[in-house]
């Protein structure tokens, strides 16, 4: 009964085209944001900030970036981690080499750097489609990481190629505690998520989706293919780049090129697929799921095994964790190939129809 649209009439197109047209959604989002900004800092532990919330937000941002490319524009990419690496190393170098540059400016410039690299590697998409493109994006994945390893200038000649992120200061305030880092990341992610949502429901987003759904038809109604695809690559890489910068500055603190490996790209792709292709919400749900699932398994499997008296060694538990993770991924794809966001949507639809089944 709570989730009813009935009685909410739209008197103008502007009202109909709000970012969250249903009143209940607006209230829920407002409450959620208030809770995230003011509630969580009150009682979450350091572990929650450093090991769960911050990486969750950063991964969600990266997943959002990939979702723009894959979900909205239909270009499958396996090189997300590399674009994150570009962002991380760019932010580091801007901080290092430009005297007195504000950190937020560095982040934005890092995003732009990643966007430029993204456009470069997006060029093949004009001719290649589908899995061929996906494999081609692996070229970006391996090549970028290699470049970061091979040009010592990029890591300020550190013998190991590892960079240590500089301190974060904005207007004299140091972001060095987990809470402050969390709030910084949260702020950036919220702004960027809103921007993504706006993009998705504007002409740009429609052009992306048109190209995704049927590129010939898109061209025929006047959407320039090259411009649209490259914009998607640019925006997507921008998001990934900022995520990479945050990954280095607010999460790990120091990163090496090898850390941005294919594995990370896959994890982010998982987030997009499990969360829901082509939805902003899905990126968040997916990130939460893929990040928390292993932790959850970690925390439950061993105690469960002990409780049941199973003679499992630690190694066996780790193996089982791998298996369960893989199996759950398959399970989710089978039960809801459109991801968690769709599940949520179906739930909402059921709520709307409740108590009738159809």
């Amino acid at each position, binding site marked *: 009964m709570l989730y009813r649209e009935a009685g909410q009439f739209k008197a103008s197109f502007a009202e109909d085209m709000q970012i969250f047209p249903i009143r209940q959604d607006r209230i829920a989002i407002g409450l959620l944001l208030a809770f995230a900004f003011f509630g969580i800092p009150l009682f979450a532990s350091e572990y929650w900030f450093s090991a769960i919330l911050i990486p969750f937000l950063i991964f969600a941002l990266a997943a959002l970036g990939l979702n723009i490319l894959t979900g909205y524009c239909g270009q499958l990419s396996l090189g997300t981690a590399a674009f994150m690496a570009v962002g991380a190393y760019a932010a580091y170098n801007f901080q290092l080499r430009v005297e007195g540059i504000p950190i937020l400016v560095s982040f934005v410039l890092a995003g732009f750097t990643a966007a430029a690299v993204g456009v470069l590697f997006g060029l093949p998409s004009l*001719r290649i489609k589908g899995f061929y493109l996906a494999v081609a994006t692996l070229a970006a994945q391996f090549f970028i990481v290699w470049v970061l390893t091979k040009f010592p200038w990029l890591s300020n000649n550190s013998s190991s190629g590892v960079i240590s992120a500089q301190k974060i200061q904005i207007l004299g305030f140091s972001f060095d505690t987990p809470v402050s880092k969390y709030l910084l990341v949260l702020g950036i992610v919220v702004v960027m998520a809103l921007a993504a949502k706006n993009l998705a429901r504007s002409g740009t987003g429609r052009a992306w989706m048109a190209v995704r759904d049927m590129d010939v038809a898109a061209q025929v109604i006047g959407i320039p293919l090259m411009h649209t695809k490259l914009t998607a690559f640019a925006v997507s890489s921008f998001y990934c780049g900022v995520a990479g910068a945050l990954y280095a500055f607010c999460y790990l603190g120091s990163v090496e090129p090898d850390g941005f490996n294919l594995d990370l790209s896959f994890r982010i792709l998982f987030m997009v697929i499990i969360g829901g292709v082509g939805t902003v919400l899905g990126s968040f749900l997916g990130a939460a799921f893929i990040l928390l699932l292993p932790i959850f398994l970690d925390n439950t499997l061993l105690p469960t095994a002990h409780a049941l008296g199973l003679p499992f060694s630690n190694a066996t538990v780790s193996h089982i964790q791998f*298996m369960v*993770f*893989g199996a759950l991924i398959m399970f989710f794809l*089978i039960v809801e190939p459109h991801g968690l966001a769709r599940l949520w949507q179906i739930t909402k639809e059921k709520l709307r129809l409740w108590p009738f089944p159809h």
Partner: protein
Amino acid sequence: MQFFFEALIGGLLSGVMYSLVALGFVLIYKASGVFNFAQGAMVFFAALTVVGFVGKGVPLPIAIVLAFGAMVLLGLATERFVLRKLVGQPPISLFMATIGLTFFIEGLAPMLWGDAVQPIELGIQDEPIPWLLERFDIVVSRFDLVASGIAAALVVVLAIFFQKTRIGRALRAVADDHQAALSIGIPLERIWAIVWAVAGFVALVAGLLWGSRNGVQFALTFTALKALPVLVLGGFDSVAGAIVGGLIIGASEKLAEIYLPPLMQAGFGGNFGGIEGWFPYVLALLFLLVRPEGLFGERHIDRV
């Protein structure tokens, strides 16, 4: 010049090893349109099962047969519990499911057989053929030659299977259109079970050869990464492409690794080796720009 040929031959021969893994991908893609990322994990699983049985005192040939049985079981289970339920889903969902499968196998295999890095002795010496070494001062490994022979034989058999047999035709039909294949009474389940069994067999062969070279261990799953550019170059659905692509990638990456870094060093200074990780991919990418469906891939038939 002699060195160039040595590098070329070495490259071609290691290319064959890539082809072997790529072949497994092609089989499954061709027959079910599934881009099976788990092929690398299957190579690992197959090889580990062989050494597992050998470790339990089973003679090698029997262990190989048992491992083949295990691969068939794995294929059947995959079909039964995963693919069958994903009929008609977009390719990306199937692709992701195979990544899930990869994780599953990566956990399952060592749980069954342990994590130890183990050798397989196939009884083929991985040493230079003395005659060539003395006569031309060229190093060619006997092992590599045998491996290429096996790969070539596999390809011939598979090509005949696909083109000439009733099942082969049905496999290609399924690859084209699941729904239509279903509608004319081709049982998808059986076809897929067969394909996965065959792919399992190819994985087993690849696993034995790679395993006897590098030791049977988790890293066998990385062989998949070597196979991907081969696939792109050769075309996802071409058995011949897997072979030719493998040869091209193998040869060019070896030559590039030897001849490119000095050039780059001259340009930028520093040390630029270790380009093998990306070179095949960039090569494949550049190639694609010229021919988007790969060397032998079937052109997508598209009517507006």
